[in-house]
């Protein structure tokens, strides 16, 4: 009996999981289909760019600054052993533009903007704003979801770039201003070693993918949230957890594809 019950529970959960993936895929397809409508009313995207992008700037810049400062300190300690302190700029810049910039910025974006998107849409559902919109013959996917989706996708690479820029400044501050690494070496070696296509564009591509994934998860969780306080709270938590795991797993896949042992 218990074996039957266990199999039944596993089967039920599997069916639910597959069902949910199907619903999420349909939701994502509808969002893309209604994106044209969103772009025609670009003021909606601009408004969302402000709340997702501009409002995330402070946390992104402050975090980038401190990550860069830590990189500067740790990098100096390691490079000093090999007498390569002058390569500190290269280490800080590559670490940030290839890896830490896109990944940490995406994690921060998921916690700050992603959770806010989920909570906002979940609460709109709980207070019947989405039903009201539907009964006013306005498609909520086109009016609410698509502008937020594209705002998130556009914001993410820009925020990652800001994170990397702030991080490089943090590394410069600790390495050059505080410790005394040669300023000329710091900047010139960085300029010589960082390749625009191989390093910077790949980093931008990563952050673009993270932007699509995090925003899609956040919007779907909000739209699919049960219309109760507990439902919205659970959906917000799921957004942060699922997005963070997706970012870290995708980061490995993308890194392997972009830089995997070919150098």
């Amino acid at each position, binding site marked *: 009996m218990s074996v039957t019950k266990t199999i039944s529970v596993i089967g039920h959960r599997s069916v639910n999981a597959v069902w949910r993936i199907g619903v999420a895929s349909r939701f994502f397809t509808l969002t893309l289909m209604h994106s044209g409508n969103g772009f025609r009313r670009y003021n909606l995207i601009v408004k969302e760019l402000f709340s997702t992008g501009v409002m995330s700037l402070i946390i992104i810049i402050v975090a980038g600054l401190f990550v860069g400062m830590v990189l500067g300190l740790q990098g100096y300690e390691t490079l000093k052993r090999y007498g390569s302190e002058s390569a500190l700029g290269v280490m800080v810049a590559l670490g940030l533009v290839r890896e830490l910039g896109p990944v940490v910025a995406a994690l921060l974006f998921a916690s700050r903007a992603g959770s806010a998107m989920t909570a906002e849409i979940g609460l709109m559902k709980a207070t019947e704003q989405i039903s009201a919109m539907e009964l*006013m013959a306005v498609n909520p996917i086109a009016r609410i979801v698509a502008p937020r989706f594209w705002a998130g996708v556009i914001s993410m690479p820009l925020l990652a770039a800001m994170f990397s820029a702030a991080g490089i400044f943090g590394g410069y501050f600790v390495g050059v201003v505080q410790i005394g690494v040669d300023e000329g070496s710091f900047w010139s070696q960085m300029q010589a070693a960082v390749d625009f296509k191989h390093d910077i564009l790949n980093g931008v591509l990563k952050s673009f993918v993270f932007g699509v994934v995090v925003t899609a998860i956040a919007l779907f969780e909000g739209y699919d949230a049960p219309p109760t306080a507990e439902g919205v709270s659970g959906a917000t938590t799921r957004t942060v957890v699922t997005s963070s795991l997706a970012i870290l797993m995708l980061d490995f896949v993308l890194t392997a594809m972009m830089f995997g042992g070919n150098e």
Partner: protein
Amino acid sequence: MRPLRLWVHILSSSALVEIRDLNFAYDKRAVLQGINMTFHKGKLIAIMGSSGCGKTTLLRHIGGALKPTKGYVKVDGKIMHELSQDGLYEMRRKMGMLFQFGALFTDMSVYDNVAFQMREHTELPEELIHDLVMMKLHAVGLRGTYNLMPSELSGGMARRVALARTVALDPMLIMYDEPFAGLDPISLTVVGDLIRRLNDALGATSVIVTHDVQESLKIVDYVYFMAGGVIVAEGTPDEIRASDKEFVHQFVHGEMDGPVPFHYPGGDYRQDLNLRA
């Protein structure tokens, strides 16, 4: 044409909403069973009944948000569940719905809430939209609140702003889901009076789903009583007041006991208290 047939023809041609043998179930739980209703143009109709009797589900069928398991809802000659997505949206542009707590868009001001449908569905210049919004807000007595956010309004004011938004495009059919819930006595009278006046001024047809018997009987033309997914009584307010049906009597007079029991069905009380017989 014989007088009786002529009378039937006149009545049927003036019907804006026809509900015939409507059945609906959530999974296997029947919510609506064989509902038949007719809402004539220009009338204000109330659908009353205790919580969970299927009133809101019925309203959602009229709005085309749910598909019946049997029967149909016909609005303005079109069967709602047979309409395509575009057809449904076209029909909804002729409808307005006031939700229980207003459902105002919390990220927009009062002005933008009322202007929402005008901007979405018309190409009207902003100057004209401004005038129309002010007129709608004036009609509900809240012109002075145009630049406030929904969070700055009281419950009654939010309901009135939502009412202004509902009638923004002068709909032919207005649906109200519990418009009196949670209102103080003054707001309750104001909202009730507005519903009647707006219906008459716009020449619309209105349907109110409500628990509030006394306020509704003052303003409506016809009442349907529902219980357990079926219609248990119907008639004009005077007929309802004079009705000797047990359910109607209990509901209209707010009596604790009657066909609607006070206690939810449960096990033996003594057993639940662990008492021995």
